[in-house]
């Protein structure tokens, strides 16, 4: 089977987006500030990347208020989970095929 780089989803080209997906893969949900801390990203940067993942349908959010402050929790959709696992498999195959 020939594996091409085209099999890698464009959405995961950015390290930050890959990071967001990694965090949400092992945590049921995570709020914006915690994500920011783990990924060491700025507000604007993180928001842009999350938006892109939301557009892909990989990530969804729940908005609520904690102590009158808006709190947004993000979680991975089933589609996102599939795409992420698929991405990992392709990465693995590429690395193995080039050994």
């Amino acid at each position, binding site marked *: 089977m020939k594996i091409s780089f085209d099999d890698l989803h464009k959405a995961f080209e950015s390290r930050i987006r890959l990071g967001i997906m*990694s965090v949400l893969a092992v945590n049921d949900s995570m709020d914006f500030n915690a994500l920011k*801390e783990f990924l060491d990203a700025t507000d604007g940067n993180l928001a842009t990347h999350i938006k892109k993942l939301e557009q892909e349908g990989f990530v969804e959010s729940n908005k609520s208020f904690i102590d009158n402050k808006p709190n947004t929790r993000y979680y991975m959709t089933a589609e996102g989970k599939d795409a992420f696992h698929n991405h990992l498999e392709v*990465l693995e195959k590429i690395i193995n095929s080039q050994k």
Partner: protein
Amino acid sequence: MSKKQDHIQDIAEIRSMMERSSKFLSLSGLSGVLAGFYALTGVYLAYSLYGFRPTEIITNKQASDFSEVVVIALLVLILAIGTAVIFSYRRATSKGEKIWNSTSRRLLVNVSVPLVAGAGLALVLFSKGFVGLIPSITLLFYGLALFTGGSFTFNEIKFLGVIQILLGLIAAYFVEYALIFWAVGFGFTHIIYGIYIHIRHKQ
């Protein structure tokens, strides 16, 4: 082959992000060693100064006769937790991380449920005079807490939990030696395990 390097780097990053976001990794082995020493000192004081040497499950002495032992146990607990917090704080800040984040919160919640249940039961049994069961109960529930907590920090903590549970069960059967198992569980096991964790997770 820079492309391949990129992918390997990607995978390394994914793995590290998964672990860092789900596990509290600033736990300090040295604080475990110190906790072991506090516990050994506590057991020694309870034994030699206050004659705490339960030989049967039910004691005919009044619970108030052992109130000093409860104070010692609480002091050991506070010292051990305090040391763990300070050492973890230092480790976390040296890595540029905050100590109070979603991973430490989750670890704390999961550990405290079995711990509070066990402490409650221990106090009830103590007040009813079942003093001989205290070492066993505290070891058992502490072991359960560690076993649960192991999912949210270094995996090895789970194994430490199993050891404490086994010691707790043995201590329940051989009540006359319960104090020795108490010292082994909270004292020696902590020291050995603390050294192991310290060496294994130095960075």
